[in-house]
């Protein structure tokens, strides 16, 4: 199992330097129905396979990152700064 995460700011670092927050999901609108909010807060898909997660580089640059990895093999497909990820998401939504 590869345990190295390539932080876009710090380079290759072991997973021990990070804290994992969980799956990346987009926040519902404030007025979204109760059921949507309930799913957002409490329900997790927990897929066996590819997933995007929030990782916090606690012992490094202290930035939030979005790590796309395979939960089964821990193959890492990509690491982005969460702010950059969010900006690209907002941009995509606007287009």
């Amino acid at each position, binding site marked *: 199992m590869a345990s190295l995460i390539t932080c876009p*700011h*710090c*380079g290759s670092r072991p997973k021990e*330097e990070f804290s994992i927050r969980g799956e990346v999901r987009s926040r519902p609108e404030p007025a979204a129905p109760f059921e949507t909010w309930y799913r957002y807060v409490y329900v997790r898909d927990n897929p066996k396979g590819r997933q995007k997660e929030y990782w916090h580089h606690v012992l*490094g*640059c202290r*930035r939030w990152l979005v790590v796309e990895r395979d939960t089964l093999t821990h193959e890492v497909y990509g690491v982005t700064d969460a702010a950059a990820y969010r900006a690209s998401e907002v941009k995509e939504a606007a287009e």
Partner: protein
Amino acid sequence: MNGPFTHRHPLDGAISANPGRSENHVTVLPEPMVLSVAALPGEEQAVAATLGGVSATALKAVGPGEWLVVLEKADLSLQRDIAERAGALALVTDQSSGRAVLRLQGPKARAILAKIVPLDLHPEAFAIGQSGNTLFAHVSANVGRIGEDEFEIVLMRSFALFAFQELMEMGLEFRLTAGFAT
């Protein structure tokens, strides 16, 4: 008469008064100056430009738009200079009494450090002047290369004793010695 806030180094008492000195040695800076510079959003490059006057080995990378300026002794003119030039673009905070600075030097410095930090310390991957926050034993520290066989470790004052003891234990096989800088 001593006031209630007398300066006391976290490693006072942990280092013998007359330490021997082998070729591998830890120099503890008794009164270093540590400034934290954190750029305001969008000002990262402008702040980096104002720090151009700080020597490469004194400027530590912490994260994007965040640095530590670490000097052996207080340099008030440099501190004023940084505050003046970067003050409007960044938050400049004096961290001197909150951090401890250890300098590890000697032919086995890299071998000793490699047992404690996960960084790739090969000179090609970690050149003189390079630095970063990383895992040091079990705590967070900023580790930088300041010479071919010399590394500087900057960490929270309260972690200093633990980190120091860990470092000395890892250096045992290489007869690592330690003392305050004079």
